[in-house]
């Protein structure tokens, strides 16, 4: 885009510089900087971290505010739940607000399992200190003579309040301390509290999704995440975590039948969710047990209605677990979709063969690369084989670069 901007394209938001290049520094004056976010280098969108730095990289720097990340669960819902917890833990550390909705376990259980953050300067929020009396001796001591421009800056920055780092690391062997967790405001939606089973069974539509959508809209309006509300001094991000959407516990029969009765309930909900998110400062992570859904076309529709989509396949319980080729990894990760919001085309990932590994302090996603070493006439060094066996073998070697 080297050509200067056409005058047709000029709006009040544009500020053409005197040298008339098309490079516009996207200073959205209305957006006050929110902790835990950063603008994307690609298109200036506001990004938040998912809590997993390698996932942030895959998604193009982070999760854009106003979008949905769909995680297709692995068979035992272990790693997808882990990523959801990373996402919520990141929200706690960045002092964002949380909205957690589940149908199976109580949201409080998920919140109690959040991994402990690894912070260099861990500061448990202390009660506000008494304001110091502004007496004369105080001022004269503190007055700077040379660096007087820095006089009025706060002396000490409390760690959690201005956690300006984007993306943190977590220790999964410990859970987050209650004090840190309670510093963040959390809204819970536990389906059994909102829907009585008898009413849900007889209704023609899936009521749980409408209830969830309504509850989310109420929270957005009440807490001021709506973009339409006038900009006040401080804005925050709402992180929405929806666990196991589409499962039978939500009253949906997507996962039970080949031809579900309410095949459009979930897609309509996702459309409404997209509408809510685009008009507010929120970001959502939805986990879905896609391995239970038989209809691939329906999965395609669901994926298209979400902006980002990844799928996890863990090796647990499968023959790949003992396969020496996969010994370094816990499972495979597939990037189904990356968004292209505010731009024409999406940033496709470099590689499609990705594998993940959950280490104590990091959830890493690496690419799998297969290299054929070649034909080899090789003596089998298997102690169980007697005698020499000359055999020709292909050797595949996977290398993580």
């Amino acid at each position: 885009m080297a050509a200067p901007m056409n005058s047709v394209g000029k709006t009040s938001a544009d500020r053409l510089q005197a040298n008339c290049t098309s490079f516009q520094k996207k200073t959205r004056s209305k957006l006050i900087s929110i902790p835990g976010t950063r603008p994307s280098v690609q298109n200036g969108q506001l990004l938040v971290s998912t809590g997993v730095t390698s996932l942030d990289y895959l998604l193009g720097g982070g999760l854009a505010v106003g979008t949905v990340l769909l995680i297709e669960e692995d068979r035992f819902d272990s790693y997808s739940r882990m990523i959801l917890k990373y996402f919520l833990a990141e929200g706690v550390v960045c002092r964002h607000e949380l909205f957690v909705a589940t149908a199976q376990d109580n949201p409080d259980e998920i919140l109690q399992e959040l991994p402990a953050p690894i912070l260099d300067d861990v500061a448990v929020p202390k009660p506000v200190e008494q304001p110091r009396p502004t007496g004369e001796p105080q001022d004269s001591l503190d007055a700077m003579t040379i660096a007087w421009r820095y006089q009025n800056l706060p002396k000490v920055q409390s760690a959690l309040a201005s956690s300006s780092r984007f993306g943190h690391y977590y220790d999964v062997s410990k859970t987050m301390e209650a004090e840190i967790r309670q510093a963040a405001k959390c809204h819970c939606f536990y389906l059994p509290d909102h829907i009585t089973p008898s009413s849900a069974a007889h209704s023609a539509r899936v009521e749980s999704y409408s209830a969830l959508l309504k509850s989310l809209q109420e929270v957005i309006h009440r807490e001021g995440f709506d973009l339409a509300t006038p900009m006040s001094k401080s804005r925050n991000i709402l992180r929405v975590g929806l666990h196991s959407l589409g499962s039978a516990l939500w009253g949906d029969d997507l996962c039970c039948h080949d031809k579900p009765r309410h095949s459009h309930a979930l897609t309509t909900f996702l459309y409404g969710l997209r509408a809510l998110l685009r008009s507010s400062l929120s970001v959502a992570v939805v986990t879905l047990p896609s391995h239970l859904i038989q209809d691939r076309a329906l999965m395609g529709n669901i994926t298209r209605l979400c902006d980002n989509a990844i799928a996890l396949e863990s090796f647990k319980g499968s023959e790949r677990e003992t396969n020496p080729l996969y010994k370094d990894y816990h499972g495979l990760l597939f990037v189904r979709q990356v968004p292209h919001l505010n731009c024409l085309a999406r940033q496709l990932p470099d590689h499609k063969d990705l594998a993940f590994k959950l280490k104590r302090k990091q959830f890493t996603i690496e690419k799998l690369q297969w290299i054929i070493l070649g034909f080899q006439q090789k003596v089998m060094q298997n102690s169980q084989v007697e005698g020499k066996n000359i055999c020709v073998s292909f050797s595949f070697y996977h290398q993580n670069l």
Partner: protein
Amino acid sequence: MFTELNSILNTSPDSFTQGEFILVSDRQSDASFLIHHFLSFYLRARCKVCFLGLAQSFCHYGAVSQRLGVSLTQAKEKGQLVFFEGLKECLSVLLPKENNAESGAMNFLRDPPVGLRSLYEFVRSSMIGSGSMEEGAEQWGPNVLLVDDLSVLLSLGVDVGAVLDFSHYCRALVCSQMQGNMVMLVRCNKEEDDDDDGDEGSEVLLKGLIHQCNLNLHVQGLPTGYCKDIHGQVCD
């Protein structure tokens, strides 16, 4: 607007065939860039455009169009563009409030079997309404209808037959009656040879629309596989 595409199709904002129904389809790919192309093309051609943006928000289309050199906000203010933002309208239907005035165009969300009649009425009123203009208002060219995208309607539970009826009614109104143009996007999921009968709906829709249209631009992935630099191929 992509100049290479214009030269291939032998069109330009100054001269293009009227009364055309252009179908943009994709298979396991994303053809929405063509919708942005046509949007900026027809706005530059000084046509009166009615855009049903069902898939994304107004800001998204606005941001992309700005990079392509057209301002949607300005076009809307001047009356050249009628923009229907599906995402915004759907909330008033999905989460009804007492004092909320809804346009009624997304009624099918509440009751899918009703069909797309109200959406068609919206299109009709925006097109016919331009006939009665005040003094001093700008004269625009032929009417154009753009839809992004029809597959969202299928996802929201609307019947394939209803969508085909809708596109037929719009074609009769826009292309035949008003000699304008129509561009619609439809998306498919699976491979063409797949025997999986889960996606019958969108396949039937695609075939029906191909039958109705004058020109079909089909976007699909490369047959040789995944390539980071070349995203796919377009054929017509």
